[in-house]
Each structure stands twice: as C-alpha cells, then as structure tokens.
C-alpha cells in the first residue's frame, strides 16, 4: 500500500442514538476524513463533540440504540457492510484501541500478561509457546519488566497500566491504532513518557494512529493531520501546520487561543463562553453559532458546508464564503 492511498477512509459517517421517548441524539453528522499509513490523525474538540463516538462507530462498538450510516473503508473494505462475525476479525488484529483510563479498561481479576496473551491466541496468530514469547517482547517494548506481567492491574501504577494497555494494543501488530485520550488520566510527567512511547512505537512499527484528545499540545507534537469536531460535525480538517498556522474556523481559532503556550496545555476550554450544544436539541443553522463571536444572520438558519480553504485544508463556516465573495 503506497503512502498516497489512505489506509482508512471515512465518508459521510453519521450516528444518532435513539433515546427513550422517541428522542434522537445526533452524535455525528456527515464526518469524513482519511488516515494514511505511518501517519497520525488527531481528533480534537470539547467533551461530547463526537470524538470517541467516531472511533466507536468505526469499530462498531456502540450499543444497540445507535444507528450508524455512511462508509468506513479500511484497506478498501467497507467495515459498515460487514457482518458482526466478519467485523470481529478486524478488531484488534487490524485496528486496536487504547482507552482513556487503563485502570478500568483492564480486567481487574486477570493477570496482565494473560490479558495480552488472550488477544494473540484469539486471533490465532501464534501457537501458545510463541505467543508467550511475544507477550514478553511486548512488555519489554513498552518498558515493563516481563516478570511484572504476572501481576494484576491494580498492582500497577497509572503509567504502567497505560503502557500495558499499549502493549496489549500492539499484540496483534495492527496497522491502525485508535488512542482515545491515552494520557488524560495521567500526571504531566507520565503523560510525556507515554506520548514518547507512542511516538517511538509508531516510528518502529510504522502504524497509523488516530489520536483522540482535547489537548492541542499533544496534537502539535504527535499529529500529521487534524480533524476539529464540534457538535458532531467536522469544523475544520487539514494538516497540523495548516490548522495551527492558519486556523479558518472561529472555533479552531478560539481553541488555539485558549492554549497560548503549547507546552503548558492545562488551561480550560471554558475560556470559550457558553457550552457545546445538546445533541438532542441542535441548532438548525451552524452548530457553533450560539457561541460564535463572528456570527452572521444566515448562520442561525443555514448549516455551513465544508469547503476547501487550502491544499487538503477544509473548514465549514459561512464567513469563509463571505470572505471569498469579498475577494471576488
């Protein structure tokens, strides 16, 4: 597979949840992006904007009240067209997942090495003997002394747990790794170590990563491409340089303003006044309109379309159209 063909192409991905009382929550709407081999894509946005839902929709791990539509082309196969049985073969073997809180994501009453082993054996990649060998290598790779694999998750520190989680994610040598806020629950020092580890691993193993975070510092450090989500829709999408150097969407601009110092990414997003929209009660126009400092009259009624604003740089805002019109 050459670098120019995307490993994963998400097209028009929409997801809504059916809630009680016939209420629908529109969590994702018309999300599209590409992930290329050896590259890292960052999914950023505030809590509840649909970052995790995107990952879960791709892996089809959402509960039965979720309704997913669109296309998810992985190595040319539409994952949404597979049966559940076929889908299981893709999970972990092709696409692995790292959770935000490894404390809860690891089974508390199973030894760590056994949890890693389980994934290898499940997908019948290696016979048992060699699988054990591989577990040791993986632990070693993430910097855990292999004999500590005999322990239980609660005997690990937070950082170690996340490392163990990473080792587990690498167990089947997936070509794509989803990392859902892998460092949020850790303290700053450990965060840096874990990110370093992820970076190294990507270099050594050459996998593609989709990194979900609300931490723009992490994005700047790790990512090649960035998707900015707001209210379940793509606000802006482009290379990390393009986004950081010329953010086009007012939301992206505000987001970046909230992080004046990329190396101290601890400030709160609350510096943007207002709160994200409720998914059950979305504005009919632009979803950012109620909080936007530069809103126009049409923003209130008319949802803006995603438009190309540079090379492989897209944003969805009526202002851009106005600007274009002005230029013309």
């Amino acid at each position: 597979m050459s670098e120019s063909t995307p490993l994963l192409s998400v097209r028009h991905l929409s997801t809504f949840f059916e809630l009680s009382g016939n209420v629908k929550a529109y969590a994702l709407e018309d999300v599209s992006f590409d992930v290329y081999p050896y590259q890292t894509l960052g999914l950023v946005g505030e809590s509840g904007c649909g970052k995790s839902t995107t990952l879960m929709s791709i892996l089809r791990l959402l509960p039965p009240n979720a309704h997913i539509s669109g296309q998810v082309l992985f190595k040319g196969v539409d994952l949404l067209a597979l049966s559940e049985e076929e889908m299981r073969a893709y999970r972990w073997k092709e696409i692995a997942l790292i959770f935000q809180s490894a404390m809860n994501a690891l089974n508390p009453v199973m030894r760590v090495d056994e949890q890693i082993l389980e994934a290898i054996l499940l997908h019948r990649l290696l016979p048992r003997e060699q699988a054990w060998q591989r577990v040791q290598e993986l632990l070693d790779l993430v910097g855990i002394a292999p004999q500590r694999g005999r322990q239980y998750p609660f005997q690990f520190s937070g950082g170690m747990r996340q490392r163990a989680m990473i080792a587990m994610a690498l167990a089947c040598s997936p070509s794509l790794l989803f990392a859902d806020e892998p460092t949020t629950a850790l303290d700053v020092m450990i965060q840096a170590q874990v990110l370093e580890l992820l970076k190294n691993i990507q270099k050594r193993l050459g996998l593609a990563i989709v990194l979900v975070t609300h931490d723009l510092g992490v994005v700047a450090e790790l990512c090649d491409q960035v998707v900015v989500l707001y209210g379940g829709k793509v606000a802006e999408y482009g290379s990390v340089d393009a986004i950081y150097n010329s953010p086009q969407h007012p939301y992206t601009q505000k987001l970046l303003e909230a992080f004046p110092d990329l190396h101290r990414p601890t400030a709160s997003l609350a510096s943007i006044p207002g709160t994200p929209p409720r998914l059950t009660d979305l504005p009919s126009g632009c979803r950012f309109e109620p909080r936007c400092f530069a809103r126009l009259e049409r923003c209130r009624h008319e949802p803006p379309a995603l438009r190309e604003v540079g090379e492989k740089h897209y944003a969805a805002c009526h202002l851009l159209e106005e600007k274009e019109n002005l230029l013309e």
Partner: protein
Amino acid sequence: MGSGNYLLRKFAFALLTIFVVVIINFVLFRILPGDPVRAVIGRNVKISAEVQQSLREQFGLDKPVFPDQFLMTIRQWASGNLGVSWSLRRPVAEILISKLWNTLLLIGLGQILSIFFGVLLGLLAGWKRKTALDAGALTFSLIAWATPTFWLGIILLAAGSTWLGLPTGGILSPQNVGKPLHTVLPDLAVHLILPTLTLTILYLGEYMLIMRSSIVETLGEDYILTAKAKGLNQWQILWRHALKNAMLPIVTIIALNLGFTVSGAIYIETVFSYDGLGKLFQTALTKQDYPLLQGAFLLLAVSVILANMLADILYTILDPRVKAS
C-alpha cells in the same frame, strides 16, 4: 503481609461476635423467671427438698450469677458441654450433633441448586436485559422474595402429596428407617424433593437478583468494551471476563445469606417435619426446653459466624485485590 492482617482482623471480628452471642445467650436465659429446678421436674412429680437442693447445686444455681455462674457456663460451653435437654433428657451437644448432618444435607443441596440456577438465570437475565426472559426472571424473583417460606412449603406439601404422591414429611419412609443409608438413597431422595425445591425456589430468587445486577454492572465496565474491541464474541466475554468479576459479590452475599438460610431451615424443617436442627429449634421453642434452645441458638449463631469468616477467607483467595491490599 497485608492479607495476614486482613485475616487476623476477620478472625478477631468473628471472636468478638461469638462473644456477643455468648453474652446474649447467657443473659437471656438467666433473666427467665421461675426456678429452673421446678421447671425440670415438671407437673408430674413430687420431689424432696434434698433432691431439689442437689439439682440446684448441679446447675450451679446456688452461686452468684456473676461472675461464678457466668464463668462456669462459659467454661462448660467451651468444653462442648451444653447441658442436658429437659424434654429429651440427653446431653444437648449429643442431640445437636445427631441432627446437624441432616440439616447440612438439606441446606447444602438447596444452596448448591439455588446458587447454580440463580447465578445462571441471573446471568442470562442480566445479559439479555429488558427481554421477556429478563422480565420473567425478575417477576419470579420478586414473587419468590415476597412469599413466606413456610407457606410455600405448605402449598408444595399439599400439592405434592395430593397429586404427585410425594411423602409429606420426614427423611425416610417408615419401612426404611434404621436401614443402612446406601440401601435407601432413592427413598431419601424422594423425601428431599419437596423441602429442597422449597428452599431452592426461595433462595434462587435472591441469588438471581444479585447476579443480575452484578452482571449488568460488570458488563457496563470498560474492560468489557476492551474485550469486545479485542474481537471476543459474547460467550467469550461472558465466560472469561464477566463471570468471575460478577461472581465476586455473590460470595459475600452467600455468606451474609447464611443467617437467612438458617431461618429457612427452621421453617422448612417444621413444615416438612424434617428431623434436623431447624425442627429441633422449633421443638425446643414449643416445649420451652431452654437448655436445648440455648444450645441450638449457640450452635446456629456460631456456625453462621464461622461460615462468614470462611467466606471472607475464600474471598481473599478469589479476588486478588483483597489479598494484596
């Protein structure tokens, strides 16, 4: 190290509780009015003053209640001497031991069956939440919970003996009593059907409810999502990841339920005239046989306390988290 401390604490607690039971037992039976000697003798007999005095000395009633009688009683209990039953005129300890196994058989069978089916049903109900199966199991459990043990026993007894020709009580048919056990196992089994069924129905509901909420909670955990993301199918997830985690609270509940189990034994053995400790307790109660009542209470309470301690120890073996902390 940590687990040693934990066990020590549990042991100390069990001792404390037993001590409380001993005190309750002693105080309750000492505040009873009336002369125990007269009560021994009953309505039917004349007895001389000397004999009464010697009985009084035999019971230690001529000494002050505290500390003499108390210490004497504790010494006796500790050495397994629980006194002599008034109504049966035999050592209480001997009577209790002779009934213990029958009760263990009944309770053991009932517990095993109800845990097995309760856990299984709870697992299915929790897994298939909000389906007809779940609603059915839930309704059954609530009704079972709300039904008095003895009444269910009476109904099953009346129905079973009328329509199925099952025995109405006892452990063996008259012609089989006294024969070696291995020759009468089928008869024993037939006699066990109704009481065991009653016990099972009652406990099953409780275990099912607990297992159901435990499994629902477990299946909501992130590591289940991890397992799903790993590509495990539902059965693999249930068996390898959910079951053990969900079963852990059940161990504690089984232990805490033992007291409830003892209550069940008293009712069921009474209804089915099953010759065990529960029936003995009820007989001692109606005959106001205080030494027997006291001994039975002591035995039941201490067994439950020790069983609780054992469950705690078992828990440390099953749950790695407790062992280390």
